[in-house]
């Protein structure tokens, strides 16, 4: 569905064919075929291709991610190459110096990998389980909300607001994440709520 990769299917075919006998069918003459017999299979031929968009600026260039392993089959998958999507109407396969370095973002040494806490006054991090982290965060949120929620203002008007905890929303998350975030933040009555539109 919606993943048309005809050009890359061709590359796959060419890559697989180089090791087999299909080269003739692609129009190679025998001399070329003999050379092709010794060429290594195209590295990306055995990868899983996934369509994505660059997460940096708002041109939203199409990218193709090449992965070892297939998430859809329930496998573990690791991206080994990212390139521009030649079929994308805006970028037509090109990427800028930021987008061309995307693999190094995905694989950055400084990716966060486990929930952690830095306790008050401490100078180091301590690892937490997800349950451990989320339970503590929910307790902080509820304590502050219960202590500082304003149900009515001084004129007796129902205002149901909470301004002592704030939320700063991301701008590279999806619209779907944004709506989930909106639902949770707004239903708590939070008003100190902003995003990256300004910076």
């Amino acid at each position, binding site marked *: *569905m*919606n993943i048309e990769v005809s050009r890359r299917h061709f590359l796959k075919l060419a890559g697989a064919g180089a090791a087999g006998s299909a080269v003739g069918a692609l129009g190679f003459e025998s001399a070329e075929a003999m050379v092709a017999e010794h060429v290594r299979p195209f590295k990306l031929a055995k990868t899983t291709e996934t*369509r994505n*968009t660059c*997460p*940096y*600026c*708002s*041109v939203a260039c199409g990218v193709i991610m090449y*992965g070892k392993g297939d*998430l859809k089959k329930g496998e573990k998958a690791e*991206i080994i190459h990212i390139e521009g999507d030649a079929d994308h*109407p*805006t*970028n037509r396969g090109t990427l*800028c*110096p*930021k987008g061309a370095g*995307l693999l190094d*973002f*995905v694989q950055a*040494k*400084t*990716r*966060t*990998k486990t929930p*952690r806490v*830095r*306790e008050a006054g401490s100078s180091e991090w301590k690892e*937490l389980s997800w349950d451990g982290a*989320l339970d503590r965060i929910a307790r902080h949120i*509820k304590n*502050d909300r219960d202590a500082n929620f304003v*149900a009515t203002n001084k*004129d007796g008007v129902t205002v149901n607001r*909470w*301004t002592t905890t704030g939320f*700063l*929303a991301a*701008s*590279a*998350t*999806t*619209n779907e994440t*944004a*709506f*989930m*975030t909106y*639902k*949770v933040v*707004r*239903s708590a009555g939070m*008003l100190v*709520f*902003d*995003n*990256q*539109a*300004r*910076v």
Partner: protein
Amino acid sequence: MTNSWTDIKNTDLVIIMGGNAAEAHPCGFKWVTEAKANRGAKLVVVDPRFTRSASVADYYAPIRQGTDIAFLLGVINYCIANDKVQWEYTKAFTNVTYLVKPEFGYQDGLFTGYDEAKRDYDRSTWEYQIGEDGFVKVDDTLQDPHCVWNLLKEHVKQYTPELVSRICGTPKDKFLKVCEMIAETSARDKTMTSMYALGWTQHSKGSQNIRCMAMLQLILGNIGVRGGGMNALRGHSNIQGLTDIGLMSNLLPGYLTLPTEKEPDFATYMSKRGFKPMRPGQMSYWQNYKKFFVSFQKSMWGAAATPENDFAYDYLPKLDVPTYDVLRAFELMHQGKMNGYICQGFNPLMSFPNKAKIKDSLGKLKFLVVMDPLETETARFWEDHGEYNPSTPADIKTEVFELPTTCFAEDEGSLTNSGRWLQWHWPGATPPGEAKTDAWIMAQIWKRLVALYKKEGGAFPDPILNLHWPYADADDPQPAELAKELNGYVIEDVADPTDPTKKLLEKGKQVASFATLRDDGTTACGCWIYSGCFNEQGNNMARRSTDDPDGTGAYLKWAFSWPVNRRILYNRASADLEGKPWDPTRKLLEWNGEKWTGYDVPDIAPTAKPDVVMPFIMNPEGTSRLWVRGMMKDGPFPVHYEPFESPIANVIAPKIRGNPAARVFKDDWASFSDVSKFPYAAVTYRLTEHFHFWTKHARINAILQPEPIVEISEQLAAEKGIKKGDWVHVYSNRGGLKCRAVVTKRIKPLICDGKTVHVVGVPIHWGFTGEAKKSAGTNSLTPFVGDANIETPEFKAFLVNIEPTTEPVA
């Protein structure tokens, strides 16, 4: 963007002012190159720096940062004086003929109603004259001195080429050459596109910068046409989406607004959002507001939102101040009035102005939660990194949580680009370690709050307990489920009023578009402008057809564009009052005698007659506003105000510092830099190799641009005894950083009001985490003041000093 990236190829003239697309949006800039190569289009760049956009321009003019309004009002003045106006468009599609209250006035940089103590206006005189028929009075002959056209003419006449040059530092001949090139696009069959970005928004009058160009584009007839438009080149991949969905203090999704405490009940709230047409026969589309609002409330609170409780109106918090924007948030934190803060994929320690104040503020919190795929400086604000981030952790009592999240490669869903295209993307990788999606984390926080409130009770738990949660796995809402909520769905069958045996709407189905939303609680819709993105046809955001009939660049079957897959906003304005395209070679829509046809989804009712219903259907006027009434805080027309930190006084109003209607917190006045100690005009910006503070974590980008730099002219370098590659200390009244100097011909001193002004350029990308070399952070320098209307910080124009120094001790 009113148009799309691919539409830029249709233009005759590109003006890049307030941006630098060649470096910041390179793959979008390719469409400028296409227009130049294939249409013979010209590119004009106006910028304080000779950027890479400028390097391929047909014409470049320098300008001092923070003076764009003087320049643009000067261009408008030129167009009026030389009759370079698209008159048929301007008279019919703008409010030039409307009459304004005679009490309105303007003098010495201020409009009527200014209150200096409040730094605010009483805007009651900025409104139209209303006739006995209830409609705005007009003068089609443009003779009345109070008509918008005459007020505009009078307002801009001060901005002569001489005055523009004196304020902006743009040589007069260069200014006039730019005027000539722009003015040519007033012809019916010529157009210009405006490409801008943070270079216009990050000023204390950012909104008026953009408004000023919009006014110019309107009198030239360049809005709603192929190759025209106001095109905001947005920074982050989904900042358009986050704004559309209303993740801001004062918004509901789809640009509905949160109630204030002056609207204690639903009836009062709706009475201020009636949007009655101001001229006969106009659509005033916001008349449907209630349908969108009620459908939103139903998507939030489902069965708990009933007609009896005004669809849970009391569940929404009511504002006591205009906005709780980020500057106010950190001011409150600094005053000790906040206890908790949650940063989702956001690095405020690096991104917000006056880093010292931001760091102090974070240290006053009880708890800070950072959700991010990368190790941010914000999560480490308490760490001691020597002169890059001096700190005594034992003194900082904030409890800091860092939660690992997925990045784009591991997450599924849609992002909305600058051109309003919602493009679905698919995950291809397993998240590293224990990283989780942001949606999962938010769901887990909510689930825990519900459990705690059920067990312990507490402050008004109803909106939390009754939050509509229609997900197959309550622990892990899926992107497709959330997208369907955004699109909207039918809650109850609705009978067809013409045939009760038939159903107009069927329970459980996705709505086709917002046109079917209702105000009686029978439909739900998370974000009305996104309606149509995931309807009964399926996930339209996942469409990937490259069909483009006649090569217009519309790509109607690629992804989904809001609203209702429309690619160019206000596209009815591409045709004249008979419905014929202004330029037959660039037809977008055409009236065939019965309805609108063409290459795009019409931005008007398909059968709306061209000589009756005007194109700007979201305005109750039906026309666009050269005069904006009282809708902007700082004036119905733009005025030239200097930045809060300026190398010269405002020559048109010497007593006014900055924008007189911009909010300044009391303690921040003392933190401003004064020209006597900080003589140089600084600007911050981005390099093409980096994206904000992320790519310093990516090795290849860290290699390409490894360390902080500052760019100065050869003249300033000579004055200060600085050579290329020397270490320098750049500092403002708030802090400083050490970095190497790049001495360049790309920046040249400007002469403003007879004085030599040196421009200092400071790229932003370095901090103290990641692979690149460390920096104290460029925002150690920047001032804590924002735009009068929307509080975007003034990162683009402030004052610094610079001195040679030695390499910092690591």
